[in-house]
């Protein structure tokens, strides 16, 4: 049975196994390799996507439950050729190192900017509990988020 997903505004069909993790469909079928399957158990956040607007680890989402949903991946968060508010702030803050965690960070933080416009430093830390970064030690990511929150 073919599944029907809406990914970054495009309607796509997939014949994947219903229990296949969404992250594998995005990467292997659609070649949207932004989401990274780093831990495959919901701890690291590197495969985060927005499903119907909600940040969701795509490693824990089976294809069957993504069927019919609006999925936004990191590739679809900004106008082509541009950066969205959090991407621009992370770039300006020189926050990026190896970059593997950033697709997930960007998805989580893009959501945070609208869901918690008054977030404090501690709120941002708590919000990132499920987004692990091995390179940066987080502080610059938090600084950039505060910068983005202050930039309307």
């Amino acid at each position, binding site marked *: 049975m073919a599944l029907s997903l809406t990914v970054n505004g495009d309607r796509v069909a997939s014949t994947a196994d219903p229990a296949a993790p969404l992250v594998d469909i995005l990467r292997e079928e659609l070649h949207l*390799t932004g989401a990274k399957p780093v831990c495959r158990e919901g701890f690291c956040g*590197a495969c985060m996507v927005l499903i119907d607007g909600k940040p969701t680890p795509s490693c824990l989402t089976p294809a069957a439950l993504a069927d019919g949903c609006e999925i936004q991946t990191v590739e679809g968060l900004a106008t082509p050729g541009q950066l969205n508010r959090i991407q621009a702030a992370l770039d300006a803050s020189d926050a990026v190192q190896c970059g593997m965690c950033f697709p997930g960070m960007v998805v989580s933080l893009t959501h945070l900017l609208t869901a918690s416009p008054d977030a404090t430093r501690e709120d941002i830390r708590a919000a990132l509990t499920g987004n692990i970064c091995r390179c940066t030690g*987080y502080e610059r990511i938090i600084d950039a988020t505060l910068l983005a929150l202050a930039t309307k």
Partner: protein
Amino acid sequence: MSDVSATMDLRRRDAADKLRGRTRYTVDRYLPGMLHAAVLRASVPSGRIVRLDTSRAARMPGVRAIVTAADAPGMMGIGIADHPLFARDVIRYDGEPLAAIAAGTLAQAQAALAAIDVEIESLPAVLTMADALVPDAPLVHPNWRDYEVLFEGGAREGNIAWEATVVRGDVDAAFARPDVEIVESSFRVGRQNHVAFEPRAVVASYEDGRFHIETSTQVPWGIRNATARVLGVPASQVRVTVPPVGGGFGLKFDLAIEPFAALLARASGRPVRLVNSREEEMLTCLFRENAEIRIRSAVTREGEIVGREAVVLMDCGAYGGEQIFLTTMTAHTLGGNYKLGSVRLVSRAVYTNTAPNGAFRCCNGVYNTFALERHTDEIAARIGMDPLLFRRRNVLGDKDLGATGQVFEADVLRAMLDRMDTLRDAVVPPPARTDGRLYGRATTVGTWFVFVGPSAATVNMNADGTATLVTSGVEIGSGSMVQSLPQIVASTLGIAPESVTVRAADTDAAGYDVGVGGGRTTVSLGAASLSAAQDVRTKLLKVASEMIEAAPEDLVMRHGRIEIAGAPGSGRTIAEVATCAQAKSGPVSGTGAFTGTGVPAMPGCVAGHFIDAIDIPVFAVHDCEVAVDPETGHVEVLNYRVVQDVGRALNPRAIHGQIQGGVVQGLGYALHEEVTIGSNGRVCQSGFETYRVPLALDVVPVEISLYEGAPSMGPLGTKGAGEVPILNVGAAVACAVANATGKRIQELPLTPPRVLELLLDRKRDLTLPHIAETWSDNLVRPHKTPRGNA
């Protein structure tokens, strides 16, 4: 030359795509017709392969190729060629590769693995260094004598893969002095997993009789040469290219899974992708090694260290690998920091039936610094001296001798300690704390170095005024390839750093390079790049001098122009000059090369060392304050300060980012990241649930001061800055926790259970009975007789 500071705090050119998810790491590569591979791994720590039959697997759906030990005849290693690609007859660790399969899909490859018929006879295993050092212990390599020696000088015997010794001065006499206190301390640390977010991954193809390996590595030339070695083919038949690397930290400083994919590509005639699962990464990681350390010092009541001896046991796992080289480092880490009247050190890489260990940011340095600094605090306590005063008295200064007799230059550490005092004293002391927790603070020092060695660079000057930098350097995240190198080239040529294209590593395009690690990117690749750019500059100035009719020495290159000094707007654009040069005598390019100069050690001091003295020392002073919960053992780091010797900071903002990140990795090592090995020889922490890296709530902003001006042979006075930030985090946290609790901290990580165990006095003092009481009894052969005066 233009002022490099004009390009300071250059942003990363790779950030925007990384933030948009567009960057294609090796794990993201996809080639038409690509097959997917998987590796069959042993599930016993020690055994003999009775039967390995792949005939049933070969008939499974989708299978295109199967390779086994018969396909990889060579042996690899550092110092000793002790490591086959696949287990041959003998299995030496749980997780050791037995066969690899390529199939149409990953699921098919995995299903076929399960159809390989394997029969293994279990053999006795040695899982700990204590087990391995028991007389008559089973040997991990019974035929150790037969191995090819790649580097002469290390003593070896049985389960001792390599032994390196340092002897300077008369240590026995120092210990026999009537006016000294003898202080002895023992330490033990566990392994640390890099948890690079991109696992080890490779896409290989075989075309025109050559292998093309696209891989996530820090060492493209190392992969080229080692792959050729295990496959038994000429190295020139292997081309390695490297996409952006999703985290290295030393994990990718060694050959990993590349040869499996290469063999399968050749056998199938199709491109093959192989990516380690997270579990494979966790269980077969080339960890930072576990180590056991006994250190003993003879110190006068006035605080002079007249003698020091130490035994350092480093678990190399089933194969020698990086630890053989790293035995060298004890001389410069445990033997660093302080002036020593006399010293003898032995580092022993010990074989065990566990997954091989490898390199990890400040290899060997983090635990030896932990041991040394805790020992230093124990000395200070014994003689009743303030630990900071003791350090100030004893840190290496100008003209002081290091452990191997090298002469250090300049008073760096003492000035850095002063800088730290200023930082710390500027903070208003907090009000009295009444939450029942135990508070403590500590300041520690550390000695590290830049791992110099050969690098090559070419700069092509394009007629449009841009330049292309071609090296074998890899961007692993530290930013050196996208920040400091283009900054160096751009400042030499007077163009914008954005006008310098940086070619991704390709062993077919650029000359040999040791690899990206050891803090050497900005130094070694930077020096080669600087020299190549200067070559281009000289050529351009010569052409310009004819065009402008001015002497080359009167010309400056800046803002994209070659001008007469003091006359802005005069002269020509660099594009015009490059175009003219190209028309007259062909395109302009320059080449550069670099390696270390080889600072001398004292003759006769070292045996079995790969590096006798360090070309570019790097010093660090860390200070932290902790609060310890006496009921749960939780340690909270309240604040953290770093004064780091950077030589010269080309991009201070990027260095600050490295320091914050390195300190946090160190906090993981100090507090959270624990690796245990079960009685079955398997690493217990198989994923992110059980291996705990620091999260956003667990970190503090590090207060940073960059110490500039210490001597360095690096280009423009630079030193490597990305590796060293992790160096003394374990030390600083451990000393602070010891000060907070009054307990003797002898082990890392300080997980809540381990701290509570100490607080409840449930834990006995650490003893290391497998380290012999008399130092020389720990050696498989006596240190060579000194040829010179000590």
